[in-house]
């Protein structure tokens, strides 16, 4: 059997290498280009080899130009992003982990209905909810405040669903029953037995919530009226609109060109990149934990 397949396997290996090589190029080239762009002046980006390295001095120049935009707005935007993202993350973890736990391992009236609604809401297109959310916030006069962003971000049914799946497939209820027999209260069972076991799923929920919130554009774009309240994503949109590169009418002498835009993009994604690098292993094993239970 094995010997018979040999002749085709060389061709197969070649095809594998070509497809993987092309895919790797497609996914990597933009990232490499983005890393190199701020080291060059705008002229160098256009004229030089796309993958040449400019100079560290050019990065400093680009940063000065970027920082000068609306007096350090870039830092304000990053701080706002951090505030909204971590604020929502905290509320998400405090609400979704116990909820997923209770749905998986305790019994109460309405449990099944809550589970169905959660799945339904999880599948609902969230962007279609942005305007209704704005109108609701407007009705209770919360639009334009940080709560109009943090609170909708912290509603995260996908996190509840992940926690529910994790607890229902990884923690046997006998374990909890034993703890109850030993005299643990419900709160102690949750805190002493379930929580220590839940670390992987907490990491997973935290990761998805963090990345989703950090990258969200539409909701803060609609909710927040003022540049000083913008998170980084909406700020990037402002930079783009202000760049003479794309808008010949807007501000001549405004030095927001390609190196500044590339640098702004890089600075904006650094937190997500760090989270990506550190959580990769946990993430894959967490996803596998979900996958193997099929």
């Amino acid at each position, binding site marked *: 059997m094995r010997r018979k397949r040999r002749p085709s396997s060389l061709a197969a290996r070649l095809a594998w290498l070509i497809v993987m090589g092309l895919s790797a190029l*497609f996914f990597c080239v933009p990232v490499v280009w983005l890393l190199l762009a701020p080291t060059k002046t705008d002229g160098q980006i256009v004229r030089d080899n796309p993958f040449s390295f400019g100079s560290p001095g050019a990065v400093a120049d680009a940063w000065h130009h970027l920082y000068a935009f609306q007096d350090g707005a870039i830092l304000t935007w990053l701080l706002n992003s951090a505030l909204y993202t971590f604020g929502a993350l905290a509320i998400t973890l405090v609400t979704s982990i116990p*909820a997923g736990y209770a749905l998986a391992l305790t019994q109460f009236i309405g449990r099944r209905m809550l589970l169905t609604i959660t799945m339904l809401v999880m599948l609902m297109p969230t962007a279609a909810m942005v305007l209704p959310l*704005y109108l609701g916030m407007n009705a209770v006069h919360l639009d334009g405040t940080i709560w109009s962003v943090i609170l909708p971000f912290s509603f995260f049914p996908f996190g509840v669903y992940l926690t529910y799946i994790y607890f229902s497939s990884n923690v046997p209820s006998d374990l909890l029953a034993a703890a109850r027999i030993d005299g643990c209260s419900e709160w102690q069972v949750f805190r002493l037995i379930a929580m220590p076991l839940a670390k992987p799923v907490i990491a997973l929920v935290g990761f998805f919530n963090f990345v989703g919130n950090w990258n969200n*554009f539409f909701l803060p774009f609609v909710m927040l009226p003022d540049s000083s309240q913008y998170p980084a994503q909406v700020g990037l949109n402002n930079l783009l609109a202000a760049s003479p590169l794309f808008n010949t009418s807007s501000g001549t002498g405004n030095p927001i060109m390609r190196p500044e835009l590339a640098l702004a993009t890089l600075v904006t*994604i650094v937190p997500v990149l760090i989270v990506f690098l550190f959580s990769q292993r946990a993430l894959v094993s967490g996803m596998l934990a979900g996958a193997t239970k099929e």
Partner: protein
Amino acid sequence: MTTHLATERSGRRRGRSARNPVGRAGYVFVSGYVLLLLAFGVLPTCYAVWLALSNSRNQLVGLGNFTRTFTDYRFGPAFLHIGLYLVVWLASLMILVVLLSLMLHGRMRRASTSLRFLFYLPGALAGVASVLLFLILLDPAASPVGWLLKSFGWNTLAQVNAPGHLPVLFTVIAFWTGAGGWIVVMYGALNSIPDEILEAARIDGASTLQIALRIQIPMITKWIAYMLILAFAAGTQLFVEPQLVSLASWGMIPDSWSPNQLSYQYAFQAGDFNGAAALSVDLLILGLACAALVVFRTGLFDRDEG
């Protein structure tokens, strides 16, 4: 597979009967989430439906807002744009993600770990960052693939961003940021198929293609369905991509390219919240209909049988 599932199910059923009936604690544990669910899930949906069915003086007008937005000259094009984009995006996502996952799974497992990470990394640039990057990258003047763009006869950014190219352009951006994550998920799902099954098929003389088509793909159908639902929902909601591209298109691309943009225009340019709500409800129904279809066809949530 069926027996495996059956034993797992009966096991879970046994687990459930052993669950202590502890009503009150359950309510306490879900209370925070339920509050959020009501405030930011259920109530806005109900409010949107109410707004869609009423007018600015809070009078019920039936389907008036729907027919009014339906006859808007921007309505047809917006949904047509999204439809075209969905066809290109879903087809390429399904085919390429499944193909790449199978290929990564089949050979050189060690190299595939790094490859998966490389594919996954652009996900960090989702949203505005990816669009901004591609807007610069797709300008033939500054692009590292300028030669490729010029070989198509596109010498300026405006030619690359021509309205007819947008569905493909958005697919490239969405694939670049999103495909890696799905490859990780599919790879994990493929990993969960026991090696013995594949080995047995191989001994029986099945080719790689036959194994993929008859064993691997059927066994990861649920995950493919899940990907389809989420990608469909995300596709109908396109906002940031057309918004930025339109900003940088020198007026060539309308700011009501996608339904969500149109809805935004209704709310904030015309102050017509009822029309905006009607469009949001259209999108919600569209997303839920697709989700329901796929869920029922594939039994996606079968794990919750009780």
